[in-house]
């Protein structure tokens, strides 16, 4: 710009409609260019004269007449959208629909986040799986609910011995012990009846045996 005349950007320079870099560059050119200096001066004077051009003042009657005309005008019919908007209008609330949508999304996101926080996922992994022995195989394992699972387990072992049965497998978990046992068919009914002595028993008529024909019992803490 240093060697180029300002030309079309003269007006921007005079009225300050340019950025700092362009202004400095224009000033640098102006220092060395008499032609542009002359043009800036003349245009500033022209603008000063132009600024004196005014419209004649409006008479007061004009304002009164115009206001009168506006008051006599019939207002255009309200479109449907406007009526819906007014119906939904709540004082001081700018975007009721948008606000509700945003809130719904935030609530949804929070709900999902709460169910799948890393802590929760860890807890789910750590938590003992119920019926690890029998669940895939047994439809209705016998459940004994008791205050002390270890004591009940010992009592169950004695019962099995009394009825000449055998303990096939047992698994101790935090709050339950799963047991599979085998007993003679003749002793089975008696054993099942005596289970009542061990605690609160939940038992179905069938479905408490696994594939091998062993009875599956879950001793659970109350």
């Amino acid at each position, binding site marked *: 710009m240093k060697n180029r005349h300002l030309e079309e950007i003269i007006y921007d320079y005079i009225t300050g409609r340019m950025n700092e870099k362009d202004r400095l560059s224009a000033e640098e050119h102006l220092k060395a260019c008499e032609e542009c200096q002359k043009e800036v001066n003349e245009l500033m004077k*022209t603008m000063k004269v132009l600024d004196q051009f005014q*419209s004649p003042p409006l008479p007061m009657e004009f304002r009164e007449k115009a206001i009168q005309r*506006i008051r006599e005008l019939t207002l255009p019919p*309200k479109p449907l959208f406007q009526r819906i908007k007014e119906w939904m209008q709540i004082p001081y609330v700018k975007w009721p629909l948008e606000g509700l949508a945003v809130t719904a999304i935030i609530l949804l996101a929070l709900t999902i986040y709460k169910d799948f926080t890393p802590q929760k996922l860890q807890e789910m992994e750590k938590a003992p799986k119920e019926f690890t022995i029998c669940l895939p195989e047994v439809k209705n394992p016998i459940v004994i609910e008791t205050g002390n699972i270890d004591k009940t387990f010992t009592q169950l072992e004695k019962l099995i011995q009394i009825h000449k049965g055998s303990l096939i497998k047992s698994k101790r978990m935090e709050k339950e012990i799963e047991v599979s046992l085998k007993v003679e068919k003749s002793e089975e009914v008696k054993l099942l009846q005596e289970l009542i002595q061990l605690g609160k028993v939940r038992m179905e008529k069938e479905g408490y045996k696994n594939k091998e024909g062993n009875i599956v019992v879950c001793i659970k803490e109350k």
Partner: protein
Amino acid sequence: MITLFDKNGETIFILLCLLIGTVKFTKENWDEDAELVRQVKQGNRNAYCDLFNKYHDAIYRYCYMILSRRNDPSEDAKDATQEVFVKCLANIYDLKKDSAYFSWLRKTAFNTCMNMVKQASPDPIPDGFPAPEAGPDSKVSGAEIQMIVQKALNNLDEKYRLAVIHVHLMGHSYIEASETMKCKEDDIRRWVHRGLIKLRDELKEYRGLID
């Protein structure tokens, strides 16, 4: 979902979201024009009178400048101003952004004036005022300057005249002027410059004004 509301912190957070999403208590959001337009849309005629009182002077001045080539620009500008406000009221529901009322009004004013210019048989450029014989020592009065400037403006090409009116006399930005006149920003910049140069040359005829 119910468990969400068990903890106070979460409830407060949700209420805050509701507030941020929906409420406009701040002043900058509560634009005066937008509020008046909203009331007009609800059928409040007095709100429209307030808008008229606020802007009729500016619109009249704008119309006067654009119609300055006509025989009686003052009367034509009054008619145009009334028509602009009547038109804008009739089409108030077309205005989507309530806060942009004034720029909408200005555009309507420009179109109304241009239609008036086009529809009517072209007026001869008013040159009823004699060019003052300004000698080297004579001073030019304010009324004479007014006439001289009006004549000089009217002698410009239409695009130069409109560009000078919008950008210099009305103080619009290049973008606003280009939107109103439906042309490029660079064209406006060029037309303003050329218009001013021509005005300078014309005004130079009257000694003491530019020298």
